């Protein structure tokens, strides 16, 4: 895409600059000098193309199918988007044990959860891993099964923290030294009916691992999804290598896929990394009973939403389910070991860490304990649960998000900068071409949370569309959300998006519009309507 633009630009320039040449040739435009000019123009244009390609480095242009992709596989090459290169990547593949003692399940992490769920435990209770903690009472009738959210670790409930309007924000567990697991009831995956499976998952916490599209809420309790999608690679800045996460747990992953295959009448789709940097793990490439699609391109092509759009598009009144790789593994463990195993490998990344690394811990680990002795001193840090684009800023005493497998720590940018808009003093990432340094150097960059400008009305157009590899009119969609136009929102495909898909658009926005917030408002409105 980007290269195409350069080519057309140079072609245009040559066309226009060539005008006096054929005009001064005397007899106006003749076939002969037309051909001459066209030849010269083409030659220069080709040369320019090559120069620009070299200048742009390896990026840009349609990527070739890597050798490891099977010949008959479905391969989708995407060009829109941008790979943000920032400092603080994990270099070593070694996974360390994290010394974390407190864990929490946080109802606000679950989209659509009522502010005050029904809590089943009290402070001082001891729980085993897999014991129910609370359930959402909003969308379910009394006679329906309850969707349980369960303890990721065993231990003592030491706090149930409340936020604004008495909403419950954290159920905190102090972990035992020795993990105790709740023994789940026996279930035979081969013979069990779908209803039995569903009931089992509702009760054991397995259901909480599944999210549905549209809206990114937990899957509705009785729904049968059209299909199930799993992305096996992540393109977000500093995101963990999923191959590493599945290492040693390949069988559990496959078991999880088998479970999922029983829950849909459609198919289970795996999105595989076809960018050619690293061959995906055998757990992904040799997974059984699934449909595999290979994707190549810049971020956000690893987002499952983008993959759904290109594999089998989500339509109005349809539901599909999505899961992360580690959630599939937990699901597999529920059946293979009859335990709720919420162990997570988490990437600790970011420029303000002394040593970015992978650690093994459990769902909802305490951030302060995760980052202990690893923070660079003397800097004001923003701790992000997730990546810098779609993650959430958190305090050190807070906990890792329910679905997150990455922590990023960057510097707070609450400084004034003299002529910062005109003569920026530090190199910073940008998708814009208005900075020579960004055009020549791909990074990695030191980043901070400064907004680098003030919020304005929408002025530029086409920016969002260039950052989202979907056939979607992003800016008109956002305008329709702002004016509460339901029909247009639905028509333009708001249900295909969740926050992480538009995070890059929000980053790139010249007018500094809060797109993820606007999108969530639109999705909530749609959700209430349906």
């Amino acid at each position, binding site marked *: 895409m980007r290269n195409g633009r350069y080519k057309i630009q140079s072609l245009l*320039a040559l066309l226009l600059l060539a005008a006096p040449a054929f005009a001064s040739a005397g007899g106006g435009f003749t076939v002969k000098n037309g051909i001459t000019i066209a030849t010269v123009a083409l030659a220069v244009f080709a040369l320019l193309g090559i120069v620009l390609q070299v200048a742009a480095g390896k990026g840009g242009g349609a990527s070739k199918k890597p050798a490891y992709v099977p010949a008959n596989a479905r391969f989708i090459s995407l060009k829109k988007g941008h790979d943000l290169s920032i400092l603080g990547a994990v270099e070593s593949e070694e996974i360390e044990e994290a010394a974390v003692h407190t864990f929490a399940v946080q109802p606000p992490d679950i989209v659509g959860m009522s502010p005050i769920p029904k809590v089943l435990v009290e402070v001082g209770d001891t729980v085993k891993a897999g014991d129910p903690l609370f359930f959402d009472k909003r969308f379910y009738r009394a006679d329906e099964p309850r969707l349980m959210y369960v303890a990721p670790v065993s231990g003592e409930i030491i706090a149930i923290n409340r936020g604004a309007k008495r909403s419950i924000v954290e159920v905190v567990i102090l972990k035992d030294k020795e993990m105790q697991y709740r023994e789940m009831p026996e279930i035979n995956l081969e013979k069990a009916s779908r209803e039995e499976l569903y009931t089992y998952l509702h009760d054991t916490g397995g259901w909480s691992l599944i999210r549905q599209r549209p809206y990114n809420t937990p899957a509705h309790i009785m729904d049968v999804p059209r299909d199930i999608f799993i992305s096996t690679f992540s393109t977000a800045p500093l995101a963990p290598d999923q191959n590493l996460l599945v290492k040693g747990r390949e069988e559990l992953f496959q078991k999880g896929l088998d479970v999922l295959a029983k829950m849909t009448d459609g198919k289970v789709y795996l999105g595989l990394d076809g960018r050619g940097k690293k061959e995906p793990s055998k757990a992904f490439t040799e997974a059984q009973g699934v449909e595999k699609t290979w994707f190549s391109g810049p971020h956000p092509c690893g987002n499952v939403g983008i993959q759904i759009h290109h594999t089998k598009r989500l339509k109005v009144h349809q539901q599909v389910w999505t899961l992360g790789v580690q959630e599939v593994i937990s699901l597999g463990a529920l059946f293979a070991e009859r335990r709720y195993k919420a162990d997570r490998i988490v990437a600790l990344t970011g420029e303000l860490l002394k040593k970015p690394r992978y650690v093994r811990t459990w769902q909802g680990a305490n951030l302060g304990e995760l980052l202990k002795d690893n923070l660079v001193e003397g800097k004001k840090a923003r701790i992000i649960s997730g990546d810098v684009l779609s993650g959430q800023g958190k305090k050190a005493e807070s906990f890792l998000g329910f679905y997150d497998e990455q922590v990023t720590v960057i510097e707070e940018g609450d400084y004034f900068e003299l002529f910062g808009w005109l003569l920026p003093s530090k190199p910073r990432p940008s998708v814009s071409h208005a900075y020579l340094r960004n055009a020549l150097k791909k990074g990695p960059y030191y980043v901070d949370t400064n907004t680098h400008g003030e919020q*304005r009305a929408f002025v530029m157009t086409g920016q969002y569309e260039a950052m989202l590899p979907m056939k979607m009119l992003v800016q008109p969609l956002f305008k329709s959300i702002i004016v509460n136009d339901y029909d247009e929102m639905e028509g333009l495909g708001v249900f295909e998006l969740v926050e992480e898909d538009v995070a890059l658009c929000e980053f790139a926005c010249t007018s500094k519009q809060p797109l993820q917030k606007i999108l969530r408002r639109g999705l909530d409105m749609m959700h209430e309507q349906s």
Partner: protein
Amino acid sequence: MKEQKLLKFLERIEPDKQKHPFWHTVYDGMFTFFYTPNAVTPMQGVQIRDRIDLKRTMIFVVLALQLAYLIGTYNIGQQHFQALGQYTGLWEGWHLKLAYGLIKLVPLFIVSYAVGLGIEFFMASRKGHPIAEGYLVTGALIPLIMPPDLPLWILALSIIFAVWIGKEAFGGTGMNVFNIALLARAFVFFAYPQTISGDEVWISGIEKVGMAYQGMDYGWIHGVFDSLFRSLGWAEFGQGGAPVADAFTGATPLALAAKGGWEAVTSVPQYSLSNMWWGFIPGSIGETSKPIILAGALFLLITGIANWRIMVSMFLGAAFMGFVFNLWGATPFMNVPWQYQFFMGGFFFAMAFMATDPVTAAATNTGKWIYGFMIGMLGMFIRVVNVAYPEGWMLAILFMNAAAPLIDHLVKRSNINWRKQ
């Protein structure tokens, strides 16, 4: 250290927001000009932001216009002296031409910014929002699309109309339907047509006395420059009031082409292809020099500020229409070979700086192709067919500004229908 001193100073002089809302708005505008604010991203949503902002985007357009300003200034003087038959060579009497051009252009520039920014500041303080950067570009564009002799009060009036009615009434930067700079020009065009059409308006400092043209007397400011030039031993302006050269017609190439086709244009020795290409012909201040405008356009394309789709499709549209007229050939103007149409008038300026205004253009990529192509076709159509005034880009762009939401609507419909399949 110095940075901190300036910051401390600025923080000390901050006016009270309640007591002096206007001055606080002005202060805020100035402060954010010096310092990017210390705002950080919220805890929810994107955690880092791209370094680009609207200030930089807008200032890049102004930068792209700087060469047009330079050549435009010089050309005001060049046209003036050429009409009088003095210093007819390009570089002869360059200091006089430059000084003459500056005397004409600087007041236009100052009035443009003073009036426009005044309204912006006032409206921003009334509405209680920060000053948006939109007028940075508009204010630089407006002098360039006006004739050099435009009275300053008409300019001021046109800007008041354009900014107040055309932009602030719609909600400010980003909300306007019509291109502000062109709205100002259209205001002059319809309200004071004698100042912007006809043969005598495009060359500065020429008046009609009886049936004959002659140069106007020079003013006191020219005298100031004269004393400077005298001390350097250079040529001076003198009194003025000289009669025009014998060959003088005052007509622009377009006016000639409308009457007599390409032959009528080329019969004037001044209108050689190279003069028309480099811009030493009469016209609006910034529109004449094609390579300079194209360099600006290229700068905007490479930095990604302006949209290439609109430029390419507008060029194609104009070329297509010119070609159709060649085939039709009913009037001498239609017979002007299509590629020569680009040497006359303000096509490139309209293409590079007017049609590409992101706020008033179509917002969708497909829409931009249609939008640009239609402007190209319509503008060429108006130029050739309109007997009263042989140029069409202003009207074509304003018309397509009005049509842009419709184009976007159709593109949206097609996306909605595709999604339903």
